[in-house]
């Protein structure tokens, strides 16, 4: 396979998931900040809410690594 497509695929795996995470966190962040202003005791829930979309980019990173390693192997 052409190397450039492999690199492009790995980059896309990271980029698309990072954008998706950013979009989700961009929407969750303000809502969580507003909730915390009124109820500081929700801090734990807030952390979880903000951390949940990060799964996407983390799995994107894993997929990118797998693509690159498979090509290298």
């Amino acid at each position, binding site marked *: 396979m052409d190397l450039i497509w492999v690199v492009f695929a790995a980059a896309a795996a990271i980029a698309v998931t990072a954008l998706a995470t950013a979009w989700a966190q961009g929407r969750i962040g303000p809502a969580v900040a507003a909730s915390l202003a009124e109820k500081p005791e929700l801090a734990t829930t807030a952390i979880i809410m903000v951390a949940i979309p990060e799964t996407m980019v*983390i799995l994107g990173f*894993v997929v990118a690594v797998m693509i690159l390693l498979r090509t290298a192997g």
Partner: protein
Amino acid sequence: MIIEMARVRIAGPRPRLDAALRLLQDVGDLHLMAPTPADGAAQAVAAPAAAPARPLRHVTRLLDDVETVLGALPVAAPLVPLVAPPTAWPAAARRVRRLRREVAALEHERTALVEEHTLLLQYRAFFEAFGPLLQRTPRWPDTRTSFVLLRAGAGASVGELEKKLRSVAAAQVELHARPLPSGEIAVLMQASGSAAAQVEDLLAAARLDELPAPRGLGEIPLVQAMPALRERVTQIEARLAANATRRARLAAEARPELTALQMQLHDLLLLAEAQVQIRTGELLFVIEGWMPDPALVPLRQRMARELGPDIVVAKVGTEPWSRADAPVALANPRLFRPFELITRAFPLPRYGSIDPTPFVAVFFPTFFGLMLGDVGYGLMLAVLAAVLRWRSHPGSKLRAVSEMALGCALFAVVFGVLFGEFFGTLGASFGMRPLAFDRENSLVPFLVFTVALGAVHVVLGLVLAVVGAWRQGQRRQAVGRGLTIAMIALSALALLAAFRVLPERFFTPAAIAVLVAFPVLVALEGIIAVVELMSAFGHILSYARIMALGTASLMLAIIANRMVGALGSAVVGVAFALLFHLVNFAIGLFSPTIHALRLHYVEFFGEFYSPGGATYRPLSHWRPASPRAIG
């Protein structure tokens, strides 16, 4: 673990109620609850007796006076020993009210002096800026001088003012403006006697955003103003020092007595609150509540010893279903106790369910250590945690955080040794080699390891769910969860056989077992079981983040090390490398913490945790919090 609670009923003659309550407050073990209405012993006595309202109002008002005075007085360090509380309430109340007035007067004086002092210091800068100008011979024999000190950001109005002054009396007025170090703008205007009135009018009409002039400064010639101002500053500083001395003396004299009084008043209010939950009649009183089971016999013995045989302390037999209202108190070994902070960030577990703290204490630092996994960063964290521990009070949240951080640092160092990492690959230059994984090159084995660890963690959560459901008599649910565990184990077996980690002959029996177990699971728990099974697999995959974050941290450390040779100058390279390592260390603290928390709260707790436990709040003596530096 959750402490075993016993439901306790204490009954006795009505005149002994106060003594019984005070003893219970001294013991500090009984969490009061209203007696069960359907109970015969509770019905034998009248409705709960509320504390009389009028004396309570006096107590509340006196407590407000005491706390206002304590809040305004500087804190003496270390904590002063408490003296015996006063016995004559009216005299104590009069003294506290007098103290409150005195402290308020001192505070009022201090505020006024500080404000004047700040203003004078600003004007001192003003006179220092114009000193030489004021000393020289006036341009006109009848020169009149005006001045204003404009607030920061009012520079534009100086230009406008100068333009207007020149238009009305160009040859007979001079304007000098100097920016001061504090940001304000000092403006000095000198005008001949004939133009002075026009200048005054213009100043009044200009509506400048000026600072008010210090009191008395307008009445003396400006040449004499500087010495007068210096003298006033000295006077104010002396008065401020006297004020601070007086407040410190008052604090030293009154704080021990006031603190004792504060504690006694809070205790009275706690007793008054407690009375609402006690049933009393003409002859009897009945107190009910929950207390740790091992503390029951000592309480019974102490009651008998101090109050005589008239008071009966009995354990009320309860059905398991009626224990839902038992309060929850966590008790864990010393090593695990700091991790209760993570459990307590969630609503407490229900009484009778499982306290996850011991598991959190093992897995949280493990996950953190796996993600950070570097001897250098681990040692930095250990130093930070040790400083935090040294600076924190015993029993405080900060102390718990510091102890958790020490545990995490230890695991980061241990995994750092296993991964052969010291500030990334720097360790290799002095012979450090990976003992378990080379995280830079063995990405797939590390990924498999983290997902396997995830499987262990999630299965542990499911095992706890089985135990919890079995304990609560929900046998069907327990079997369903057990079957989910079996399906995860069989799926793992099939996968390992498919990838030839295990002999291939395992694949077919494992796959058939999964296919057989699946309809049984659906039959036991309904269609929701399918969703839960899928979510359990999703949870296991989520542990891949340990590998992802660990690798990202290592890559950043490697980039930091490469900066040394990549930027031409070695000094600049080392400076950038240090800066980058510092940034990576900061990320390495934040990210693994958040993700280890998430793995616990979402993936692990999600399998078994049942929140909703009431906090155990026994009737006890009130204690002041750690002193705060005031004044």
